[in-house]
């Protein structure tokens, strides 16, 4: 797909939990090759938006278009299979399985056995293949989750607070990895870490009380953290 072509187009999205409406008329877009960051306070609706896009929550109104195809009614596994991978905030891996088995499962689901490109981003995973995933550190788990998401070269990865709770040196490693990953994959990230956001984001959406309240695409404004007021 050519760079800058529209990859994801969300239009007028409304999402509720039962009778409680949490997303109000949200519209946004992600172009191919971009790194877009979504910021906002806790409870702003960021994770709900990600879960809606990735097929875990039913949409009340509006449309989610991926490569011009409407995917509102797609189930989560179908969304993953068409090339959108979601890495949730909880950092849950298959803890009783080894790292190798985790990767094997992810490979099997998308029928892709090529692990080498993933090891280029995270070489340390190669050394940990036989370790039980439940015994990995937080940073290693996050790397494994990203590695699993990257198998099969997806077009878009949604990451929910990938650096939350990680040590500063791990965040530095992850930031470097994101810069490499972005050369092949579009990233849509929920992030509260402002320096990281300023470092990698091409555009920033700010969310408040279930609505998109600001879009920042000016590099200087991003560097100056103009969206900070929404955090």
């Amino acid at each position, binding site marked *: 797909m050519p760079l800058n072509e529209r990859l994801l187009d969300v239009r007028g999205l409304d999402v509720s939990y039962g009778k409680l409406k949490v997303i109000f008329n949200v519209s946004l877009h992600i172009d191919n090759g971009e790194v877009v960051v979504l910021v906002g306070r806790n409870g702003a609706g960021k994770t709900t938006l990600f879960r809606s896009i*990735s097929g*875990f929550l039913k949409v009340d109104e509006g449309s989610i278009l991926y490569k011009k195809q409407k995917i509102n009614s797609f*189930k*989560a*596994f179908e969304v*993953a*299979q068409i090339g959108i*991978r*979601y*890495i*949730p905030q909880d950092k*849950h*891996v*298959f*803890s*009783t*399985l080894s790292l190798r*088995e985790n990767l*094997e*499962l*992810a490979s*099997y*689901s*998308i029928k892709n056995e090529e692990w080498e490109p993933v090891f280029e981003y995270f070489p340390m995973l190669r050394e940990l293949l036989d370790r039980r995933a439940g015994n990995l550190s937080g940073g290693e788990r996050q790397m494994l989750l990203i590695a*699993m*998401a990257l198998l099969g070269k997806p077009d878009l990865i949604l990451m929910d607070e990938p650096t939350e709770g990680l040590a500063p040196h791990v965040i530095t490693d992850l930031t470097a990895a994101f810069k490499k990953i972005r050369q092949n994959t579009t990233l849509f990230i929920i992030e509260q870490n402002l320096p990281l956001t300023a470092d990698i984001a091409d555009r920033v959406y700010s969310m408040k009380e279930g609505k998109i309240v600001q879009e920042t695409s000016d590099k200087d404004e991003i560097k100056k953290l103009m969206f900070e007021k929404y955090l």
Partner: protein
Amino acid sequence: MWKKAIDNLIPLFITLLIVILRFTFPNKLSFFTEVAIFSIYVMGNNILYGYIGLVSFGQPFYLGVGGYAVAIFLAYVGHSPIIALFLGILSGVVLGLVLGPSFIRLGSSYFALINAALCAIGVFIFERLLIDITRGNDGLWFRSRMTKLPLLDIRLPQNFFIFVVIIFFFVLLLYRYMDRSTLGTMFRSLKNNEEKLRFIGFDTFKVKWVGFTLASALSTFAGALYAINFGFVNPSLGENTRAVEVIVATLIGGSGTVYGPFFGALTFLGIKDIVSRLITRWELVVGILTIIVLFRFSKGIWGSIQQYIGVLREKLKLLG
């Protein structure tokens, strides 16, 4: 390399253990025949509980269906025990495919209860609704209509033991293969984190359905073997009061493990056999043992053995 070789030989060791025990205790032929059959039954439940994470209080229903599939075929239709066993397995596959889509949508507790309800309905069907065919509590007898196999007359208990042990060996090999395959990994992952499995692109509904169908097929297969072993079937085979037996055996052996079902079956039936001669309510000892296992050895017999072997291996590594 040694580790792998030993690992590959475990199914053979276990099968040989049954044979050795049978010849060590020659008057316990029917007991060891039952151990082999009950192990297959526990393997089915282990897929549900140990791998997928679904508790079923209705497994005797599937056992009963397998038993009656064999009995009805041999009593009214044909004479070949092989075809009858095949029908026994087929009945489980059909049940799994038909009931699966509605049952596996339910949460774990509802799944347990709906299976219990099904079990109660099953007993009513076997005992009352189809009484003209099943002959109700009198049971359906068919041994005299059964032909012998070309190489083995399985109507004789000692030959049926050999037949069952051979079947047990191959089922164990297939079970081990399943455990090591991606399917086994998917089952375990389902119990571990179903949502995550969907994130990476798996249709977890289908994975559960396959697991449910496999479990049903193993249970009906065990029921079919029970039927041929007894030469008759009555509704008590499918009674829901016996639903806990298979769950307890799964727990004692080590849920979610390949060889746990065998150790669970051997221990459960062993306790039942020994204690029932001393006290009428043998369930008391099984109950106490289950509590001990749950509190002290939650990994069960095989799970604990694996754990101790792992610790021992680490210690040996440290010693150089």
